[in-house]
């Protein structure tokens, strides 16, 4: 939306800032403490999920609650192929498998749910999480007779770099999709699906492909995240909360701008960490209050809020000068 208008003039400064942040992140393990690396890995994990979610839902307007399903599939890919007894495959291959498995499921689910719109799509994706979890649990219980899987431990810096790599990939994908004709097609689906299809956009194809791309990143993120968990079972791999968090983070940050979801995810996850460690007793209460207030008073998220404040400041200036 906004990006296209000022790309000629304002492209350098955000570019430079992005580079500085990127350079800071790449060298983080050199100067940051190990726990900072772990914490930022966590923030990046949420950022990955949030941007992947916005990639599909933010642009098309279809609110998906399937994040936990794809994330969980990724986690389980690691559980199957990276057991503590020794990796059967290289970690990056497993990350790829986690992503691909998720996108295949997304492809299938996307093809099935063509007819569903609005709330029906949302409920279906929600069902996907619990259904996959129950079926997996049943499969592990009656076929494998295993309900716990130990995952090999991986160096924290390695996890951080893979997570960062995924973050860069998902941001680039998001950036280019938004600017491409494909992105335009998606946004027109979000605005008016019927009109879009009359305009000659293959609505179905665009929707399914994006859903699968977004699922790929969720699955890959889950696969590398699993190596932090060290132990997993179906109930812990598929947590309904993981479906909701990216939505809330995206709304918190604001979906109107490319940085919105990232800022939302980072601040939200950091807030969660602070509340959990400093105010354990009322963590859920304050979390819920922040959530409700954000939905009520920040319809365009933090970025929207900043824009509004900025507009007021600059508008005020113009009046006075």
């Amino acid at each position, binding site marked *: 939306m*906004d990006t296209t*208008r*000022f790309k000629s*003039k*304002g492209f350098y*400064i*955000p570019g430079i*800032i992005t580079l*500085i*942040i990127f350079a*800071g*992140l790449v060298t983080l393990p050199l100067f*940051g*403490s*190990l*726990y*900072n690396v*772990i*914490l*930022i890995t*966590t923030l990046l994990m949420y950022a990955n999920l949030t941007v992947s979610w916005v990639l599909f839902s933010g642009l098309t307007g279809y609110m998906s609650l399937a994040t936990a399903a794809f994330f969980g599939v990724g986690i389980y890919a690691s559980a199957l192929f990276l057991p*503590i007894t020794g990796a059967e495959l290289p970690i990056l291959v497993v990350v790829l498998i986690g992503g691909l498995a998720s996108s295949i499921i997304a492809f299938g689910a996307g093809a099935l749910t063509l007819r569903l719109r609005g709330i029906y799509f949302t409920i279906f994706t929600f069902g996907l999480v619990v259904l996959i979890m*129950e079926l997996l*649990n*049943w499969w592990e*219980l*009656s076929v494998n*007779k295993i*309900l*716990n899987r*130990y995952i090999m*431990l991986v160096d924290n810096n390695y996890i951080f770099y893979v997570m960062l790599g995924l973050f860069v990939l998902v941001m680039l994908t998001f950036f280019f999709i938004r600017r491409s004709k494909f992105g335009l097609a998606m946004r027109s689906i979000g605005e008016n699906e019927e009109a879009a299809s009359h305009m000659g956009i293959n609505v179905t194809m665009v929707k399914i492909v994006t859903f699968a791309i977004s699922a790929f990143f969720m699955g890959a993120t889950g696969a590398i*995240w699993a190596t*932090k*968990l*060290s*132990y*997993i*079972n179906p*109930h*812990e791999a598929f*947590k309904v*909360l993981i479906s909701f968090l990216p939505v809330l983070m995206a709304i918190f940050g604001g979906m109107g*701008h490319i*940085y919105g979801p*990232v*800022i939302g995810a980072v*601040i939200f996850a*950091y807030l969660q960490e602070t509340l*959990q*460690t400093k105010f*354990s*007793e009322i*963590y*859920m209460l304050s979390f819920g209050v922040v959530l409700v207030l954000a939905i009520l008073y920040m319809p365009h998220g*933090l970025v929207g809020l*900043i824009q509004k404040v*900025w*507009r007021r400041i*600059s508008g005020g200036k113009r009046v006075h000068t």
Partner: protein
Amino acid sequence: MKKRLLIILIGICVVAMMAAPLIMTGCGEEKETTAPTTQPTTTVPEGKPADYYTKEYILIGASRPLSGANAPIGDAAYGPVMKMWEEKVNADGGIFVADYDRKLPIKFIIYDDATDIGTMVRLTEKLILEDEVDLLFSACGTAFISAQAPIANKYSKLLITAEGGATTMRESLPGLPYVFVSLPFSDHYQLPVFADMCAAKGAKTAYIISIADLHGVEYGGVANMEFGRVGIDVIANKSVPITYTDFSLLVKEAKAADPDVFCVFAYPPIVLPVTGEMMAIGFNPPAVIMGPGANFGFYGLSFGGDPLVVEGVTCFAAANSKTSPEFAEAFAALEELVGWANLDWWGAPYYLPLVEIIEQAIVATGTLDNDVLRDYIATHHFDTILGDTYFEMFGEGGGLMVKETHPGEIGQWQNGIVEIVGGGDWPAVVLTSEWVYPKPDWPAP
């Protein structure tokens, strides 16, 4: 123009957010380094730790489920034991640590993991890396300690686990030298004892309902084996999902099968309604064993507030107030802290000695060095509330509290309390009553 500035603004925000944790830790370190200036700035004596003068307390960290599905268990199990120990030690001025030549009080950092494994893992790493705790205490639940054990081991932190235990954990112990498992579990040595008890009373058939998770599968599997060993026929082994809420039909089917022994290997949300349903339809097999759940005080209070209602229900339990004067004192203190409803006759007898072991190991070695403590615990016997207490070591790996330490394995509700009615054949076992078989009828409604 406006837009460009906006982007800068946002960029600054992102940088600030990224930098915030770094700055925060920076502040934290500053705080710690400013403290010594108030202390005498003499050099640390030879062979003493660097914080010889500045150490104020022994810092202990734990990630516990203060909220979420495991909160009721955490509240009733290891949580109160930690609290009691903290009060006792600090009232005493602390634990004498020879490295510091003085008593150091203990201080807990307890974070809420909201019953989420990812959060628990991150908080455990925070405790070790950022808070630099001297000692790490156990998370709550078999799945949680399964995940915490490799993490603690990775950072060479001693971890004596509390709520949880499983055959799969024992299998992983050889690779986890810093991990010690305390709680008894299925084949260590609860179900072998129970199967023998049933066989001795002439039971012929058993019917099992188990929850479809690690715990249920393990207990179901081990029970199958143990009943087979003593010639009891297992009629059925039904697995129920953790989220299922209605057990009428299952209980009815069990009743129709008319077993001698009815086992429910599940958590309180299933154990309690199954008991209620058994009362309602009058299903009263000669032996009923349930757990975890029936080993807590609240089980007895859940059916109208009178524990006499569950007379004859068998559960997993190790000790009660009658086991020894020490236990009588400990249970009285726990009751004062958390109430009778939260007394746990299976877990508490094993959580109580954990803090004693740690305290004795610190006093004996005179250090907070986890490597030294680990080696000391691995090679020594301790005199605790359980009597002679020690761990069986798995090669170069971790340890498991030996079954010869267990004062009992099986309990039964009799006259409104849990009596210890079954245990192995070793000297430590103290049975407080005879097992009543067949169990008396449920009281008339």
